[in-house]
């Protein structure tokens, strides 16, 4: 088991202007389940390949257990990797596939046999060892890829979207198995995914990546509760956060966010953010659909029209419109509401996020400067120490 450290990593490809990965500083603790999350093309897979040694960084230094490995070939880094398409050797049986990394390290035959059985057993492949790869289902292939990774007790396991080729039910099942596996072998895991549900449920910490940089790093809770900027805010959470443009105004003792359709009184936390701040224009209010309440139109200042209702089972996702502004809200499934209805909305001011013109969360940026202890959770954010939250 091992820790990983990345220092100012940058990767450029020839003839591409924008670097695939830039200025990535990252420390991954021993035994941590670390998730790299981002949309496709954000550089997360490239970062994984850099750690694996399949790509060479253009700049920066990678350390495994404190030792620089920039010039160590992938096979000598003591890491294992599970690829998105599994990358099994199709001409070999399950046993030969799992045994291959041992064979290439000249592990003594009896010991190898034992290790293969143990690895296969831990992913419940014991009975399929002599099958050819072609005779396996997608889920079984996925487990072969996992077994091949754990068979030699790697210092770290790198998983590149390992669940993306599985169907929905199998994905949830495998997700649980992966977590159990992680707890039993206690390996350091770096897990790449574009699926924020996977990231939230599995990771000790998440790094949200976009266009080659890490936008935010923290525990799933912290990333969800304190999205540092507009990108993270809109990427994390389903249904997506509502983002509403408007201005800030000073009123009585506090501040309000306001535009033609929405007015939200901001709580005391924001006073320090805006105090002495000259420009109070072009802000964005972010509010998750579950923090938007529907109320009778009579009690509300503005009248919103229900445009669309989507059934979610326990809840209904309701899109409402007022002039050119649209908001989506989650309501309990028994709420009596129909498309075309006129309703009012109220926004829970505890659950809003304010982003400035540059798209940065005003509170989170303040917290990072260390000026104000906004919330204990936001501080814990930067603490790499792993506490098993499960």
């Amino acid at each position, binding site marked *: 088991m091992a820790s990983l450290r990345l220092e100012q990593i940058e990767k450029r490809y020839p003839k591409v202007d924008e670097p695939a990965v830039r200025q990535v500083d990252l420390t991954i603790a021993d035994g941590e389940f670390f998730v790299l999350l981002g949309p496709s093309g954000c550089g997360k897979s490239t970062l994984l*390949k850099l750690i*694996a*040694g*399949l790509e060479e960084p253009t700049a920066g230094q990678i350390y495994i257990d404190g030792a620089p490995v920039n010039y160590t*070939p*992938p*096979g*000598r880094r003591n*890491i*294992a*990797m599970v*690829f*998105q*398409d*599994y*990358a*099994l*050797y*199709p*001409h070999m049986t399950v046993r030969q596939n799992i045994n*291959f*990394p041992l064979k*290439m*390290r000249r592990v003594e035959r009896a010991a190898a046999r034992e290790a293969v059985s143990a690895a296969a057993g831990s992913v419940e492949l014991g009975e399929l060892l002599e099958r*050819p*790869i*072609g*005779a*396996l289902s997608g889920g079984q*292939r996925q487990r072969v890829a996992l077994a*091949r990774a754990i068979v030699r007790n790697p210092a770290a396991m790198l998983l590149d979207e390992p669940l993306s080729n599985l169907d929905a039910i199998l994905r949830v099942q495998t997700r649980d198995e992966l977590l159990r596996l992680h707890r039993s072998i206690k390996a350091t895991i770096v897990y790449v995914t574009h699926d924020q549900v996977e990231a939230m449920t599995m990771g000790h910490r998440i790094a949200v990546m976009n266009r080659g940089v890490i936008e935010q790093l923290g525990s799933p809770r912290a990333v969800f509760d304190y999205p540092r900027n507009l990108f993270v805010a809109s990427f994390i959470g389903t249904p997506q956060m509502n983002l509403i443009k408007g201005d800030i105004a000073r009123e009585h003792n506090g501040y309000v966010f306001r535009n033609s359709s929405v007015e939200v009184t901001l709580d005391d936390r924001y006073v320090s953010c805006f105090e002495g701040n000259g420009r109070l224009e072009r802000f964005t209010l972010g509010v998750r659909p579950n923090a938007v309440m529907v109320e009778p139109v009579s009690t509300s200042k503005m009248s919103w029209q229900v445009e669309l209702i989507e059934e979610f089972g326990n809840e209904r996702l309701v899109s409402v419109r007022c002039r050119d502004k649209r908001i989506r809200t989650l309501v309990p499934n028994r709420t009596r509401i129909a498309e075309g209805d006129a309703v009012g909305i109220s926004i829970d001011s505890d659950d809003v996020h304010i982003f400035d013109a540059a798209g940065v969360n005003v509170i989170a940026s303040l917290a990072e400067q260390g000026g104000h202890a906004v919330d204990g959770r936001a501080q814990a954010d930067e603490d790499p120490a792993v506490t098993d939250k499960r």
Partner: protein
Amino acid sequence: MAGDSKRLRFPRYGGWPLAELVPQPAFGRRLYKGTGVALALAVLSAVAVGPFFYVLSISFRNSIGLFNYPPHWLPVPFIVSNYTRLVTQFPFWRWIGNTLLVATSVTLIKVVIDSMAGYAFAKLEFAGRRIAFGVILLTLMVPQAMLLIPLFFIVRDLGIYDTYWALILPPLANPIGVFMLRSIIRGLPKDVDNAARVDNCNEFQIYRHVVLPLIKPGLVVVATITFVAQFSSFVWPLVGTQSANLQVLTVGLASLNPDRASVSYGLIAAASVLSTAIITVVFLMLQSQFKGTSLLGALKG
């Protein structure tokens, strides 16, 4: 009820049209259709097989009976002296031996070199990769006949004129195998080479343990094409060698009628039959390999 009329109505027999509901031609019509196809195939086979049969027939006749009109299809009288003369009076087995030696060597070396080059061009990043591959492709576009004289000088300057090397080395430069294997290797499952790299393989081990087994069908195709081409190649073996004991089959066959006055067609036919038999056997052997491995290819995940 109003609700009922809205309900979807499914056909009585349920699901897809049953086979019985699809009109089938009457038996007589089916027979008629089948006969037409059979007749057409028979004519085509006759056109394809006829010449081979005629050569076979000639090889068992003497040359005098050949020019009768209308021509006889069957070898009457039946003689085997063409074959005995071929193997006793001419170094026929030597020609066969030379041909097999050259064709086999070229095939084996070519499969190794081409698959390595194909792997390099498909999977490795190195400076000048595109240019090098472009140059290799360009050589495909140069007519072989144009290369004859330059090749002759090169071979002479290398001091290998009139040796087996002269027969084996030049055909290795044909790029078609590199081209084919490169595209096959590019089509291999994404990341298997990366997986092997993580599993502590060096580039040669990736090639040997992962790529080579996976491209076996492609190797067999390249081997077959190369072997058949070598077996029937004539011009370069004629130019590149001189001595009788280096003659390959094609060159030997051409030497069967040194003076045009007395062409022994029976002899040439006998030699053709034997060489065709050999190449057929080799082809079938390679083909059985191809079938065995194409199944493996289908299991690709």
